[in-house]
């Protein structure tokens, strides 16, 4: 913006301002109405959604995967999208920092005097794209199930065996997801890769009987599932049959 453009803007603004209405009471009335709406929304949210308090913080749990407040979902999802370890720092620190610096400096690199959004196509399109990307990542972050879930398609071989087999497979999947296996094992896209071996195709390497033996008498530090077998044999059976179906050619 050069000197002439600045002066022209100031002149036009002075005229527009002189033709306007005073701040009080006209703008104040609108602001007041908006404030009432905001207060009403906050009160309704507080009444209907409340302020739930989860279980007490326990530093000894290893299976809890935290989720941030919803407005950080887009950052959270960005972390999940970026898989290679060498790029993780870029997603955690790099991209947000660069975006913030670009946002801070916006008036210093966008120096055109034009203010109408339809005549600033680059700025408008960039903003719409960024808003769209943030909305998409937020929605994806919200859709991502809790960490106690394994999202793998049911293999065709199980489907072929009929409804009862599928039911057992689903039940076993649920037992596994809730037993904290994912803290140390990777299954498909879920879980941590280590210290335990990946279980995505464990049935290729180990028959069901072998899996059952390992569950009851594992190598340290894996906890034993003997008590599950004794107390809830049905659940244990489902778990073994689920693990027994995890083959690389299963689906």
């Amino acid at each position, binding site marked *: *913006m050069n000197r002439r453009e*600045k002066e022209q*803007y*100031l002149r*036009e*603004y002075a*005229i*527009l*301002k*002189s*033709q*306007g*209405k*005073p*701040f*009080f*009471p*006209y*703008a*104040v009335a*609108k*602001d007041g*109405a*908006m*404030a009432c709406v*905001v*207060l009403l929304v*906050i*009160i309704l*949210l*507080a*009444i209907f*959604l*409340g*302020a739930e*308090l*989860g*279980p*007490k*913080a*326990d530093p000894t749990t290893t299976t809890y*995967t*935290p989720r*941030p*407040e919803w*407005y*950080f979902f887009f950052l959270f999802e960005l972390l999940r999208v970026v898989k290679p370890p060498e790029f993780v*720092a870029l997603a*955690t*620190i790099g991209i947000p*920092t660069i975006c913030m610096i670009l*946002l*801070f400096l916006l*008036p210093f690199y*966008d120096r055109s*005097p*034009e*203010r109408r*959004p339809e005549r600033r196509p680059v700025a408008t399109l960039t*903003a719409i794209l960024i808003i769209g990307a943030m909305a998409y990542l937020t929605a994806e972050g919200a859709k991502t199930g809790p960490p106690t879930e394994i999202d793998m398609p049911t293999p065709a071989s199980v489907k072929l065996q009929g409804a009862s087999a599928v039911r057992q497979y689903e039940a076993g999947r649920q037992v596994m997801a809730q037993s904290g296996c994912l803290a140390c094992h990777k299954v498909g896209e879920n879980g941590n890769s280590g210290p335990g071996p990946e279980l995505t195709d464990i049935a290729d390497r180990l028959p069901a009987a072998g899996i059952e033996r390992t569950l009851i008498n594992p190598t340290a530090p894996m906890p034993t599932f003997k008590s599950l077998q004794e107390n809830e044999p049905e659940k244990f059976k489902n778990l073994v049959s689920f693990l027994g179906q995890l083959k690389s050619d299963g689906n």
Partner: protein
Amino acid sequence: MPKLKLPAPPLPPGLKPAPPRPGKPQQGPLDKAADAGMYTVDWIDERTAMSSGLRWVLFRKVPKGTNWFYTLGSATLFAFLSQAITGVFLAMYYRPDAAGGAYESVRHINDDVFLGEFVHGMHKWGSSVMVILIFLHMARTFFFGAYKYPRELNWVIGVALLILTFIMALTGYLLPFDQRSFWATIVANNITASGPLVGPYLGDFLNGGADFNATTLSRFYAIHMMLVPGIIGALIGAHLWLVTKLGTTAPPWNKVKVPEELIEEKA
């Protein structure tokens, strides 16, 4: 004694007070009360000269065509005030004690205190409302080109306020000290510590040591209720000062109608 000259508010014709009746004015109790009020305002104004500043703020003109999008800024401010007030009430009961007192005190607020869960809920959901409003306000500023000359500095302060709002959201998340907040904060701290150059120092500062420990909660509490709100308050002051000084932007589509007396006749 200087007799206060009340500025005549530019009211629409229907709201203007009726002119006084001729003759000797009757002194009813209402008139006496009005006189006492006038005297008080006059007393304050004689010492502070506030009325000229107030007149400057209140009766400055706002360009024609400002619409509801222009209320988003004041709505964000209002959400912040709501957060400040509900936060004060929560602070009356909250104990930043990582050994169990924090969780216990929040449970006490929720279960025992009169309207406790309601105020807690207002504070919790108010943060979401404030984040949404600050984003909408920023979008309005961006699409209307309101960050351009002469309001660049106001944009920079606004971005700082956005970041501080996020810091408030992040530090407030830990305070109930339940599983969710505890582990989410550990992740956030680890991310901070993984940053280049200042990252490890910032991570140490947030944790109050090399790792998450009891100091972390007190630290987050102090940041959440003293450090950041103070800075936010100061920056909001600067933001509003610049808004009143530079004026609200006109919508970019507004055409300038040059008043007739300013148009030079062409020879």
